[in-house]
């Protein structure tokens, strides 16, 4: 088996053993959901409901006229308790629709409303837009934005790399929903006008590779690309480089590369939105951590408060732990437990005190070169971090700070424990101002 990859990167312990064999399971519905009107990059939705309104599961509760926006839907049936700003996983506040459950139906009824083999491209695009489908791999753009590219692309690249430690939600989806994935890929391929589908999967998921390969064995237009287990293999640019060999110059658009990358979960969600008219109201989330009593891959409703998830997984004591939404390399640590799950939340990882990287005093860069050796963008994180720290933005730009994808390898590996990613994030807006001048 030919295994492909990219230059640089690091082998980080992947801690996937806690959940990789756990079948997808439904988590009970919470008593209350908090649904942010903005869950991705783009424009915020306007609420379509107000306090006191009765809503039914799947009902559209927020929408926008902007192109870069995806509608949001009620993930439970109940009464709108409030439309107000609430804390979201990014740490900021967003307008949210808060719904209190009633005794109406709390599960979406799945019935086929369209035939996947005969549905038209226009209909598919409309369903993806109306279903509020947005990127589910972490970054998250409204999906319809890229289902109708103005320039033709030849390849649809499905991202099943799942390189973040602990996360196994895409892994389980590929194993258990290979059928829907392949059908969804076909719809997506037609919609973007591509002629082939490549599915990049890291080789630490042999059962996923097997399941998907089995479904596409008679197809000439689809191919599984086994990828080396290396972080950050699942980042878009590195997946493109590894799977197609194409370079990804800065500022390049998908059309320039002839390639559109989609997360496997998004592909299935778009399929369900089309065939079952099911909006994106729930998703598979990996809840994991070395001390989590009931780790697993759960189907959880969008808007479910973190508290409910923690409780359902049997976690009693959170003292000194770190609760991360997303993977531990790029995900965000949460300071409170009433934040909601959003469309792009891949996981909830609870790190026990002994694994928590304290707010530590870090040292000068000793120029050991480990960050340079492993940087997947082939940058010099050492120089960048020194410039960023000292506010030398022009020099930081010369060292290509804007190319940094903030994958976190440098900070992970730094023997001086320098918070390189944090320094970069802080400096980027300043450098951007400098660029515009």
């Amino acid at each position, binding site marked *: 088996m030919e295994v492909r990859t990219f230059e640089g990167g690091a082998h*980080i312990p992947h801690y996937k053993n806690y959940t990789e064999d756990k079948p997808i399971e439904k988590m009970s519905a919470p008593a209350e959901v908090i649904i942010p009107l903005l869950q991705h990059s783009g424009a915020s939705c306007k609420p379509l409901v107000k306090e006191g309104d009765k809503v039914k599961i799947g009902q559209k509760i927020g929408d926008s006229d902007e192109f870069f926006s995806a509608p949001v839907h009620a993930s439970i049936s109940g009464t709108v308790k409030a439309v107000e700003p609430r804390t979201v996983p990014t740490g900021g506040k967003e307008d949210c629709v808060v719904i209190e459950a009633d005794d109406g139906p709390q599960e979406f009824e799945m019935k086929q409303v369209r035939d996947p083999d005969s549905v038209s491209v226009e209909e598919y695009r409309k369903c993806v837009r109306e279903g509020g489908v947005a990127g589910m791999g972490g970054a998250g753009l409204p999906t319809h934005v890229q289902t109708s590219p103005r320039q033709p692309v030849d390849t649809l690249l499905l991202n099943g790399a799942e390189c973040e430690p602990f996360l196994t939600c895409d892994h389980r989806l590929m194993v258990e929903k290979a059928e829907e994935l392949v059908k969804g890929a076909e719809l997506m391929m037609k919609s973007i006008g591509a002629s082939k589908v490549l599915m990049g999967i890291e080789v630490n998921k042999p059962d996923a590779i097997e399941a998907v390969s089995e479904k596409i064995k008679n197809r000439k237009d689809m191919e599984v690309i086994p990828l080396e287990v290396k972080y950050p293999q699942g980042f878009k640019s590195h997946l493109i480089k590894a799977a197609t060999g194409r370079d990804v110059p800065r500022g390049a658009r998908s059309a320039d590369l002839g390639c559109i990358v989609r997360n496997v979960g998004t592909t299935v969600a778009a399929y369900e939105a089309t065939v079952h008219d099911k909006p994106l109201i729930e998703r598979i989330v990996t809840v994991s951590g070395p001390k989590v009593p009931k780790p697993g891959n759960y189907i959880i409703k969008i808007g479910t408060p973190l508290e409910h998830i923690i409780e359902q997984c049997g976690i009693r004591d959170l003292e000194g732990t770190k609760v991360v939404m997303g993977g*531990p390399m790029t995900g965000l640590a949460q300071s409170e437990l009433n934040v909601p799950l959003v469309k792009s939340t891949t996981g909830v990882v609870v790190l026990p005190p002994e694994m928590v990287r304290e707010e530590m005093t870090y040292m000068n860069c000793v120029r050991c070169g480990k960050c340079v050796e492993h940087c997947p963008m082939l940058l010099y994180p050492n120089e960048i971090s020194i410039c960023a720290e000292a506010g030398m933005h022009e020099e930081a730009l010369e060292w290509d700070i804007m190319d940094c994808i903030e994958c976190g390898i440098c900070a992970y590996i730094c023997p001086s424990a320098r*918070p390189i990613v944090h320094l970069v994030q802080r400096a980027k807006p300043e450098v951007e101002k400098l660029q515009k001048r």
Partner: protein
Amino acid sequence: MTKLTYTPPPHLKAEDSVSKAMLDVIIALLPVTIFAILYYRGSALLTIVVCLIAAALTEVAFRKAFNKKPSLNDFSALLTGLLVALCLPPAVDWWIAALATFIGVGIGKELVGGLGLNRFNPALLGRVSVFLIPSLFYSLRPLFQDAGIYAGGVDAVTQGTPLAMSHQGADMSILQLLAWNDGGALVEVSPLMVIIGGAYLLYRGHISWRIPATMIATVFVLSILFMENPVNQILLGGVMLGAFFMATDWVTSPITDKGKIIFGIVIGVLVIVFRFLTPAVEGVAFAILIMNAFVPLIEKMTKRPSFSEPKATAATAGKGTAAAR
């Protein structure tokens, strides 16, 4: 309410730390250190102990003066002390050893901002300073003679070393070269032990092969051109210690792969220049210190293009396909 830790990503941290790495370098120096103590006994032990104590005291004092927390637990001061000791001859006066260490740790490192901010290798800076100071004392001797100050320590660095003997044409077997040499610095007692330490550093991933390999190879090849015995030239003097422990110092060597190769080659060339084209017997320390100054320039020159850097050939090829469509 439970307190959650809220810090920016990434939330995982590798085990690597500066202290662990420094400790590893000290471990790598143990074979040659033990060998030197066994061979020279008390004089070597005294020099080493004096340097370690001087290093610790200097660092604590300087950091106190700068209102910084003591950082002895990162082992970098002790490492510098040990390296200084190994560069000195066993019969050196204890105060010269202490002075060399003081200059290395205090002026070479702490005064310029501490570990990471020093441009020159602290141990070599300390060693070279006491090499130069005696001649300074000599020129100033008329001033001191009346005061009765002893301008000593000269003997320490002018005694016959194996390298000097080799210059004079003395023959030595390879085994003798590898195992023990009388005279010269402590570390010259056994290049083999230094190589074992270097191999450990390579195995642990603390250094790259690029600097030692290119530096040693350059000395070897150029020695042949100068009609000298190349094996003698790489095993005698400070070549092995310089190649594995000094030129590879993280802080004072280039970070780029190509830069490391250039750095190693030029140091090798300079070593040969000092040995064969100047009256100096040894030049490893000077060669490395000179090249330390060029590190920022070398790095700028050898910067690799970013992953996102548009590639000229790829761009034109891309346009070609687009036009064909």
